[in-house]
Each structure stands twice: as C-alpha cells, then as structure tokens.
C-alpha cells in the first residue's frame, strides 16, 4: 500500500531505535486541537488493476476525434524514440541537476538543447526552458524592462494579433510590477499589424514591442518593418515565434531590426497535446542580456582532472541565491519536455523539420482550398500565412463546430469570443499528420452541416 516497503517487524525495530512507543508518538509536537482524527473526502485506495480500468474507461469516453485545431498547440508526428528515451527512469525520475557530477546526462542534454534553440531563433544564447509560451512571454516583458533601464516607460506595445491567452497571462503576471500592455490594433482586411499603426506611439516611448510570427491567425507579420521601427527608437523587441516555422521562416535574429528576446511555445517539438500541458516555453537572447535572462542555464566547464563537463551556471540570477532580488521566482521548469524536444530535434534535424513545416503549410493550403469551395465559406485575409488559416462563414460558427464534433471532427475554434469584429470566423489548422483523405472528410462534413441548416 502506498508503495511503502516496511514490514510490521521493521517498524517495531525502528521505533525501538528511536525510543518511541508508536508512530503516533512521533506526531506529538502537533497541537492536539488541530489534529485530524480521520481524513474524509478521499475515497478508499485502489490497486493498480482497478485504477487502470477506470482510467481506460475515461480515456475511451474522450475518444480520438480528427482534429483541425491549432491556436497555439499543434499536432505533429512524434517519433517513438522520443518518449522511449524521455520515459527512461534515469531521465524522468532524476532531480534538478544541482549535483552536477551525478547529473551529466541531464546537463549535457540541456546544453545541446540550448544550442539548438539559439540556432533556430538566430540568437546567441538560450535558457533551459520556462513553463510555457505564455508565461515565457510574460517573463520576456519583465526582462525587457530590466534591460531597458534607460527608458522609464513600463508600457509594452503588444499586437492584438498575439494569442489572446498570452496577452491575458502577461497581464496577470506583469501587472504587479507596474507593467501595462497597450494593444496595437490590427488591420481587419489583412489580419496583421500595419507598420503605420505604430506611429501613434512614437512620442511616448515604450518598454518593449512584441512581434508574433506567425500571429494568432496564422498570418505572417511584416517583421522587418516592425522590428526596424522599434530598433530605431531604442525599444527592445520581443519576438514570439512558432519553433517549427523557424525551419522555414527567417528567424528573429535575422529580422531587419533584429530581436532582443525571443520566446515561444516549444510543444510542437516532440511534446504531445495532452490537454494543454505539460509543454515548455523557450527563451533566447543576445549574449549582452544573458545576466537578465530568467530560468536555469547550463554551461560547459572543466572538472578537476581537466576534462569537459556541464554544470548549472550564472546561478546568482536565480531565487535560491538572490531571493527577493532574483530575476524571477522560477525554480522547477519543464526539464523532461526539454529532453523530449532535444531528442526530437536530433531525429528531425534541419531537413526533417523543414519538411514538417512545408508539409503542414501545404496541408493547410489544401484545407483552405477544399473548404472555400463550399458556398458560404471564404478565406478571411488575403495575406500570406503559415500552417493556420481564418475562414469566414455565412452563419455563427459555434453550432457548426458542435455539429462537426458530433461527427467526431474538431473543425477549429470559433473566433467570436476573442475577435467579435471578425465573427463569424473559424481558425483552422492542418499539419503533416493530416492526409488528403482527412481533409476531404472534413470538407464533406462541413458541406453536409452547412446544407442541412439554413444560413444565419
């Protein structure tokens, strides 16, 4: 029970050694007035067989629908080797690598990961991960304020084309330190920020300009013009990017105005969808900002015999040393997901990742073409996009999605709650995991649903 190995005899020997009459006696420092007589509200224990049955029933009831939802979490093929390795007990039951000599496996993996993320993003250094893309974005805002001490502004310019939950989480996390988010409006024709929209902010300065690529709609922003505008005004640029897209798209380090901090959601790199987590946030920056970057960082050094080895470094930034003056309170990060991503990127390489990016984009284009052939469905924006697309319908989207769900197809998300000005609009995504037959099945289902119900 409870994976406790003690026999009654052993318990007796141990109590004797302690000099206590019973295990109850060991709790005699807890005031009697607050002692619990009996723990209620927790069911009786289950053996592994029983809990296995329950979990399999619950999993079966959730099913495995055909999914065309993106919106910040993307279904990609995950090679079997990725989790065969990440599920090894030596990786998943290890602790944070504080005793470096006993943790070279984890530390070297992170060093390799840092190298891959730095290169993918076109930056010079990366950390060992943050919790997810949204909280990484919040940390990037706080970092931008720290690195831009010259400016007194605590106002960050954040496009309304950035994922709504990233903006919400950033507010929840950074507002306590006085940071405000000013939402830059987008062009409803093009689904992106027009550089002219920034002119109104020129007089007052800003703590940072965030630039998503692609944005929440899947549309490609004019990253060169936007980053250059910020660079000219000494405003730090925070790039928020999709890591798969970086195999195909120009990385933030190569944008005309460059970037100061790059963050994003690492889930597409070998991490399953798993109802929203665990994922991981990645962060990369310029070498000159490394001491302001939160999170763990692994460095290579030498051991007492002059051989190379890896260790956590620059720990003076972190909570266990700086305490109240730390760059962030972050302690546990997302180590195991980073391990998975490092194996994934090793298997895919630049060539494989590029194929995934191209195939995902091609499938989405195919999806858009198939759906816009249906009367009542048209593409919302004429702008270039990457692997995700917004479609206008001729009627409210929610009932259509419900009808599709009854056919075991998840057709995307309804944009009405977050972008009522675009409604009725649907955000849909197809990755390399979808075949032409899948797309045809989706299109047929939509055709059937739309023709069986009258238009709004």
């Amino acid at each position, binding site marked *: 029970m409870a994976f406790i190995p003690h026999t009654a005899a052993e318990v007796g020997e141990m109590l004797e050694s302690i000099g206590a009459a019973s295990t109850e006696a060991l709790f005699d420092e807890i005031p009697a007035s607050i002692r619990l007589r009996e723990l209620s509200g927790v069911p009786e224990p289950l053996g592994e067989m029983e809990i296995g049955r329950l979990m399999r029933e619950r999993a079966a009831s959730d099913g495995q629908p055909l999914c065309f939802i993106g919106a910040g979490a993307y279904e990609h093929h995950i090679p079997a080797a990725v989790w065969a390795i990440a599920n090894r007990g030596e990786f998943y039951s290890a602790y944070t690598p504080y005793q470096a*000599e006993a943790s070279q496996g984890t530390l070297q993996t992170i060093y390799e990961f840092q190298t891959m993320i730095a290169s993918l993003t076109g930056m010079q250094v990366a950390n060992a991960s943050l919790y997810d893309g949204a909280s990484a974005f919040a940390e990037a805002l706080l970092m931008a304020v720290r690195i831009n001490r010259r400016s007194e502004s605590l106002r960050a310019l954040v496009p309304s084309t950035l994922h709504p939950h990233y903006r919400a989480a950033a507010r929840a996390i950074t507002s306590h330190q006085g940071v405000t988010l000013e939402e830059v409006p987008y062009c409803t024709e093009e689904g992106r920020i027009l550089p002219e929209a920034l002119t109104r902010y020129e007089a007052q300065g800003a703590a940072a300009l965030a630039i998503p690529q692609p944005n929440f709609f899947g549309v490609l922003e004019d990253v060169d013009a936007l980053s250059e505008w910020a660079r000219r005004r000494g405003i730090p640029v925070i790039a928020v990017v999709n890591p798969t897209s970086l195999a*195909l798209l120009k990385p933030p380090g190569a944008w005309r105005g460059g970037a100061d901090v790059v963050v994003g959601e690492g889930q597409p790199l070998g991490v399953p969808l798993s109802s929203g987590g665990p994922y991981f946030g990645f962060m990369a920056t310029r070498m000159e900002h490394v001491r302001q970057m939160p999170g763990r960082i692994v460095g290579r050094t030498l051991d007492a015999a002059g051989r190379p080895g890896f260790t956590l470094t620059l720990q003076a930034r972190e909570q266990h040393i700086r305490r109240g003056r730390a760059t962030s309170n972050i302690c546990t990060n997302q180590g195991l997901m980073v391990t998975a991503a490092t194996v994934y990127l090793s298997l895919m390489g630049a060539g494989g990742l590029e194929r995934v990016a191209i195939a995902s*984009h091609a499938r989405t284009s195919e999806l858009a073409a198939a759906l816009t052939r249906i009367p009542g469905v048209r593409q919302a924006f004429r702008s270039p996009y990457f692997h995700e697309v917004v479609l206008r319908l001729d009627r409210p989207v929610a009932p259509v999605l419900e009808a599709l769900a009854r056919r075991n197809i998840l057709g995307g998300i309804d944009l009405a709650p977050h972008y009522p000005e675009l409604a009725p609009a649907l955000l849909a995504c197809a990755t390399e995991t979808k075949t032409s037959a899948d797309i045809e099945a989706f299109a047929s289902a939509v055709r059937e649903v739309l023709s069986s119900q009258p238009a709004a």
Partner: protein
Amino acid sequence: MQSHGEKLIFEHSRPGRGAFDQWPQTPPDSAAVADIPAELVRQAPPLLPEVSELDAVRHFTRLSQLNFSIDTHFYPLGSCTMKYNPKACNALAQLPQFLGRHPLAPESHGQGVLACLYELQEMLKAVTGMRAVSLTPMAGAQGEFAGVAMIRAYHRARGDLARKEIIVPEAAHGTNPATATMCGATVREIPVRSDGDVSLEALRAAVGPGTAGIMLTNPSTLGVFERHIVEVAEIVHAAGGLLYYDGANLNAILGKVRPADMGFDVVHVNLHKTFSTPHGGGGPGAGAVGVGERLAPFLPIPLVGRDEDGRYRWLAERDLPQSIGRLSAFMGNTGVLLRAYIYMRMLGSTGMTAVAEHATLNANYLLARLTRAGFAAAYPERRASHEFIVTLKREARELEVTAMDFAKRLLDYGMHAPTTYFPLLVPECLLIEPTETESKQTLDAFVEALTSIEREAREDPERVRGAPHTLPVRRLDDVRAAKHLDLTFKPAASVAGTPSP
C-alpha cells in the same frame, strides 16, 4: 560507471545523414510554399544534428546512464520529496486518448479527463481543508505567485491599498521572497528561535496595517513543526493579514493535520513532491492552489466545475470575474495533474495517512541512528518531521572537510547527496529527507556510508575533499563556468572556455 565523456550530438553529425523514417515521406515541394514572401524565408539552415536514428538513440540512452535518479539511487534530498514515481501513474496518464487531446477540444470530448481533474480538485480540498482549488499553476513557484497575488487582490478589493508587505521567516525557501517581489510586494524577514519555531515576539512587532500576509512552510524548512502555528495565525489575522502555506513539506502531515485547521487562508501543493509526479530532471511540476472562502473569487482560471446533471465544464472569466487571471496559455500541466490523480486514487485515505507516518518514521529513525553515530543534529531536542538537519560545522572547523565534500563523497558510495547549504540559517548543513518509499536496509546503508565518510575525513581527508572519484566527471569548476561562459556549442571551437563578454 567510468566514462571518458560523451561527445555532443553535433559531433556525431555527418552531412546528409538523418532519421529519414521520421520525416514526412514526400520530398519538399517548393511550390507548396511559393505563397510565402521571399524576404520572410530563412536563408541559412539552423544548426541541428544530422544523425541516424540509432546514433540519436544511442547518444541519449548513454546520456541517461550518466544520471543518478530515483529509479537507480537513494535520493534523500530534503524538501524535494524524492519518493518512488509509480510506473502506473506514468503509463495511464499516457493513454493515447489523454495524450492526443487538444487543449481546446470541446467539453463533449473531454468528460473523461475533466472527471479526473474535478476529482483531483476535490481530493486536494480534502487533504488541505480548503474550500476551492485551482490546478492551473505549473510549478510550486507559480502556485506561490498565485497565492500572493490573490492575497493582494483580496486586500485591494476591500479598498485596503496600504497592505504591501509579506512576512517570511529568515529560513524561507528563496522562491518565497522572490515571489513576493514579483507580486510587487516588499519582504520583511523575521527571525527563527533557537528551538526552530518562529519568534512570536518578532512576529508581533512585524505585523501592522501594512501587512498583506505571511508565507510559511509547516513543517518548516528547518524540518520541524511550527508548534505555535495557531498563535501565529491569530496574530496575523488580528492584524488584518492572511496566511499563505507553502506546501513543500506536506508529505510530513498528510492525513494528520490540515493547513486550513492551522489557520492558513491559501495553500499551494507541490504535486511533483507530495503526490509523486516525476521530477523530470527539473520539471515539469504542478503547484495547485487551494483557498478558503475569502479568497475563492480570486482563484486563477480555468477551474473544473460540475453541473447539476453531472456534466463537467471549464469555469473561466465569466464564472470568476474577480479571478487574478490566467497563468498560462491553456489549463496548466494536465499530464502532471493526471499522474497526481492516479497516485492519489491508489493511495486512498488510508494510504495518505500511511505516507506521513512512514515518512516521519524514516526521518526519525535516521536522526536517532546518525545522532548515535556522532553526527550533530541542528535541532536535537525536536522531533524530525519527514526531514531533519545535520550540521557538519564541527567537521568543517576541525577537519576542514565541508558539507559539500561529504555530499560529493556520498556520490562515490552510490547515493545522491541530501540537500546542502539550505536552509542558509544552519552552517554546513545537510537537509535529509528519506521519504516513505525507502526501506530500513537503504537507511541503514546510508548511515554506514556517512559514518564511513566521517572516518575518512579523519584518516584520509584528501579523499573526501577530492570527491567524487568514481563518477563520469570529477568535481566541476563552477567558478570557471561563470567566468568563461560556454553556453552553446560552436562548431568551429571544440574546446570549452572562451572569455565571457
């Protein structure tokens, strides 16, 4: 296991190599991306490995074998609760339907996972005594952030804008003051008495109209139960402040006493400690937060609710208009939450209590045996909770062998070292937490190992100071690591150490 060091994965690369079975099988069609403007397209490919699948599997499998882990070694890290991570929790959380479900999939296709999360909320309420729970914080530190943010939101909602100060004991975990700062609060430290309890006198002097609240762990970071916790709660509440419980040491008191009954208004639970979700080499964790009635409107969203007809649904902005908001893009570390749920169902009510009893038994047994072997306990008159502190200050002074040296030498004995140099209050300390899943044999071996190292410290101190000797690397130079920053592999340079800018 001796090794001459593993190459980096990049050093195994050869141009043109790849794990082609994993790639999309059709070659890339440039026409498919012709609609992407040329100026947005990447020019130079990123530096990623070009290796076969066997190369990658062999490389990472060999790396894994360089690690100590719970599956392979005794790991008595204080405050980390390195208990066995049941394989069933891992396997069942990775059932394909759970693993493949999109976070924005509709509730109609999520009643199974939502049922697990709802019941997890209920069980966490039961063990903490709290009235409402949010599962969204993705780690203990995020749970702390949520807790302090809720306390501040509560005071603001009452129009009490002066309350900006968070009190922490001087022995608090670093995340506590770091969290307070992140929430825009100021930190006031109060001293701990020589018997390990917080000083009530100092607390009375510290509270006032500026007090937002106090953050406490109980049992404390010193490994002992805060015996005057009821008085502490009365003092803080009387001054208008709230109490925050850092759940790092919950394993010691499961089923024995509940934080709500101690007077706490908000708690975070480290699911990767008490509820055995894997530590993963540094995460992912989960820091669920529970609150009393006063703070319930402020919980971070989303939560899982249940309708009268028994259907589960997400509760978000509309349901909790005063919420402190979202802390992530989706709903937290669901996969971790499922593992905790499975573990808690396997434990059941009797299992929870047994956990605390055996964790405490193991710690007190080690304390008794080590004391008899001549080691100095930091709080010899106190019961150990699920952990306790040994101080090696005498060894450091007389033999010039430090806690760090003992820790490194323990690795040679095939055991991971306990937590060292935390809490800062106790010099040359080892914070030892065996957990309930370790047997008497393992504990006896640990006592023998430490006794043997003590003898070595007297007879052959260099052996201890030079440890570890039998691991893949010798002791690593941290000073050099920070001074000559080498944080990414650069293909041209193959030697570690270029001067930092």
